[in-house]
């Protein structure tokens, strides 16, 4: 039981490293957010469940933490992405933009003046 837990914990910690690496390597906020959110959510998923499996008494509580984080982390990322767009962070490259009808980016206003 504790062997499976340890394997899951190591996988989770590896995904943390991947998330940090994505945060450093990616070129703009939106891509950084993508890499960081996916990697840290799966990392926490795996690490916390690993702890729950290695200590079976805590399993239900760790499940609650996992459910909580799988809801909050993507929601936080969505809100941050919208805030960055409105704040006026320019994507480094854009092949298509259908968001401009929904909100006004502050970066565009500055470009006009």
């Amino acid at each position: 039981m504790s062997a499976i837990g340890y394997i899951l914990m190591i996988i989770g910690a590896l995904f943390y490293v991947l998330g940090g690496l994505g945060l450093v390597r990616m070129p703009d906020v939106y891509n950084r957010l993508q890499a960081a959110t996916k990697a840290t959510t799966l990392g926490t998923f795996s690490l916390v469940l690993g702890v729950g499996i290695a200590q079976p008494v805590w399993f239900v509580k760790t499940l609650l933490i996992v459910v909580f984080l799988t809801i909050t982390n993507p929601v936080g990322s969505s809100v941050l992405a919208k805030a960055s767009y409105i704040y006026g962070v320019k994507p480094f490259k854009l092949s298509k933009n259908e968001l401009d009808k929904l909100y006004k980016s502050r970066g565009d206003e500055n470009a006009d003046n």
Partner: protein
Amino acid sequence: MNTLIGILIVIGAFFSVLRLIFGPTTPDRVVAVDTLNVIITGSIVFIAFLLKSELYLDIALVYGALSFLETIVIARYLEGKK
């Protein structure tokens, strides 16, 4: 084994601190803080496992809730800022 997991977590946290220091815009820094918060929540659970103390799981839950609140509040502040 525990040392290995600890070192990996610290490397991940170190990369997000790098982005926190060098981030060119404010949203970059907020993204870095958000990532760091999730990593810290996970490591609190890991500390609970190391110290064999269930009390730390409560702290992880509270920390997760407060870090979510922090992300949302800063994001809403950035939206309204001139």
